[in-house]
């Protein structure tokens, strides 16, 4: 299944709400949570992450992985945590509106 336009940011925020992760981890996590049914080009994660960082929803820091490699870790800011709820609500509203239209027909 192709990812809908504009939803990647929301998914990244959701994944990060469970804690600090690096980019590769996030993309794996999305794959696992969607039970491998979402196809996301792994690379497109990064522009999205940089965008979120610029907006102040996410902050990054350098750190070491379990395997001892240096990686860039992302985590939600206070602002970002609030945004998760906003996005969740917006998505629900969106789905319900679309649902009502689709059911009507």
């Amino acid at each position: 299944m192709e990812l809908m336009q504009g939803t990647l940011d929301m998914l990244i925020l959701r994944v990060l709400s469970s804690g600090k992760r690096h980019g590769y981890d996030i993309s794996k996590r999305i794959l696992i949570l969607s039970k491998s049914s979402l196809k996301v080009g792994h690379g497109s994660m990064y522009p999205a992450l940089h965008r979120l960082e610029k907006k102040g929803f996410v902050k990054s820091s350098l750190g070491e992985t379990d395997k001892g490699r240096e990686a860039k870790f992302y985590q939600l800011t206070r602002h970002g945590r609030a945004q998760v709820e906003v996005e969740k609500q917006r998505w629900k509203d969106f789905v319900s509106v679309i649902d009502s239209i689709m059911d009507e027909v």
Partner: protein
Amino acid sequence: MRWIREWGNAACFAFGWKRKQRELDGEMNFHLQEAIDDLVDQGHSPEAARKMALREFGGVEKMKEECRDSWGARVVMDLIRDIRYSTRSLWRSKGFSVAVFATIALCIGANTTVFSVLYGLILKPLPFENPDRVVHIYNAYRWGQKLKHSNAGWSQYLDFNEHADLFEGFALARSRAKILDGVEVNYRGVTSEFFDLLGAEPILGRFFSPEEVYPGPGNVVVLTQTAWENDYLGDPDIVGKEITFLLGPPHTIVGVAPRSVESIDTAARFFLPLTVRGNSLKPSARMMPDTDLWARLKPGVSHTQAYEQLALVEVNALKAHNPRKLTWMKENNQSTFFEIDRPHPLKSSLELLQVGTLFLVVVGCINIFNLLLTRSMRRCPEFSVRYSFGARRFTLGRILLCESVILVLVGLGIGLLLAWGSIAAINGYLAALFPSGQLVEISSAVLFWTLLMALAVALIVGLLPLALLWKSGRIQTLDTSTRSSSVSRNIRFFSNSLVVSQIAITFVLLIGAGLLTRSFLNVLDVDPGFDASHVVSGHVNLRPVYPDKQDWVGARTRVLETMREISGVENVSFQWIALIVGQTGFINDRFLIQGGSADGDPEPPSFIKFVNGEFFATMGIDILEGRTFYPGVDEASTSCIVDESFANRYLKDRIVLGSQVKRDNLYGWQEIVGVAARVNFQGLENRDGWPVLYMCHEKVSQPNFTLLVRTKRSTESMILEVQSKLREIDSRLYLRNATSLDRPLDNLHKDREGMTLLTGVFAFLALSLSAIGIYGIVSYDVEQRQREIGIRSAIGASQLNVIKMIIRQGFLKTSIGMALGLLASLYLTRFLEGQLFDIAALDLATYSSTIGFLIFVAMTASGLPACRAVRLDPLESLRVE
């Protein structure tokens, strides 16, 4: 071009992009490494795992690009690339760049200068509250055809204050000088309303009270802010301290005036209460010398209403106090009394200049447009290639715009430097012509508008060529045949005729500049008749030290004798107080000549100078016949000396020495004892003015005189020594207006010099612009006819033939322009006749050299593109097809 790359790197560093870039690389490498590791763990070979990971990731470079976009780096990166590209391509075509820089710099330089002067002298509002209501009132009267202006007086001021209710108030102000610590310092005598009327509040202390002005004497002084800051180091406790001038009682400092007040008189250092005495107090005396009347109108009152009320008040006052003047005015058909805010003497000429310089800008824009059009056409193949590789109109436009912005900004920089230099020069003239007036500066508002205008020009001339080429479809089709690309015929005709008119205007200006320059040189060639180079002059007033009339001759002789003691002094003499050199203020009268005047006039006029015998030696004036005055022998009632011109005009073919002349019954008949060489006291240009008659003043008792000292030494050090010698005689004596005599003589030519310089500068501007114009037009033609030139060369036309052919094109336009210019000059130079000196308005040498010079310039301007055209390999230009 390395500096641009370095500069770009520096910018990247400044924004932290270098570090971010490294981090981004690391992050993506890490991702790929982890993915490969996982895939290898799942059993893939390292090689296969690597390929799969890259596929899953998507384009690495594209992602990096997108990340960079999110930092906002792209715009800056693109800009740096554009600037680098444009600079490199401008550097390659140096001729083009220099032509454009020169055009922009000249246009902007001229415009900024003229507008700054116009703004600084005329448009700038006075720095007061509601400046439009503050007005300056002049008495005006008709003198022949001209409207003359005169200053106002005490009685007018009183009458207006009482009866003119459309005004909030009136104030008088007068410029004078006092001697403070051995130096002459300018001040303004003002009435008590002066500061209030301008809306000024004291920085410290207070201003004058009405009683301090009249009846006075208020021995109080208000400092200007500049004097307070510079001479008293901004002393906060200055109020209450005393100043003692050379004469009179000490004055108490009562306040400091704000700087805004200084805009009325930039030379004044302090203010004193205006003093009025004697005849000025009579209600019939309406005017006082050099006294200004200022007023503030009530809100909503127009100048016409104000004028009518003042005229009414004045008529009533004259009816009561001076009915004779009223009758006289009626007889002489004089009705104008006042003028409110007399226009600045330079107003109309400056406005004309401003229109002229705006026209320059239009011409300059057309020139630049021509140049850019030619250049864009030459680059058309490049644009076509870029277009077919996917560059859109926007991208092409951005590159062209970048180029024109660089061109405009560099031109702007040079232009502002030019403006700065010329304003400095203009301020020199302004200071000489209007000593207490404001100087001019480039204001920030002027700078802002110039920048805005320049960028607008950059936008228009940068994009218009592209738009025209785009419309012709040449870029889109990769079609490089020359025919389809010609810009519309109308535009060509328009720019051709502009070049022709540019040449015509240049011709007229060159003629004008040539005639004026030669007139100026001719003026400088005139012998003034005296040697001003080593003479010191200055005024001495004996009255404060010697109140008794009988002491004056003795005191004057003592002063002269004391001056002789100074080493290096050759001659010492005096004349009765009057200007030595200058255009106004001479005493003149009519004379009776025994036996009648040779020119038939029963009472011919003459200037009169009151001098002693040594005057002639001091001034270096030769006595041609007879002798000078001898002390103890000659007296005012017995002897006089006339100049050459007097002898030639009025005593032609007679024995001059011994002839008798008579001024009036007070002196009776005087015998001419000598004939002096002709002296042009009124300036070199007035050599044909009235004759001069010298009266003997050896024994005449007067408290004021002008001291003249001829020296071998420098005049500066001599002035100092004369001052100290005067102080030795009495500490209250002072040499006022002390100057070296050549300075006032030089100032007499300042207006001519300025006029000559200005015309010269404009002629140069016009010449440069037309040269660039011809160059632009001919370049365009050459570009258009490249194929034709190629074919001609291929079938055997020599280089000389081709050059001739192209120059002929430029020459045709030059000839038409010059013919028009010649006609215009023949008509226009008659208006210059008043300014010409010893040269005919149709001077053949000036005309022929101007024609020759202009042809030379036009040949050079069209020769450059011609040479470029023949250097092209014919095969090369044919292959373009």
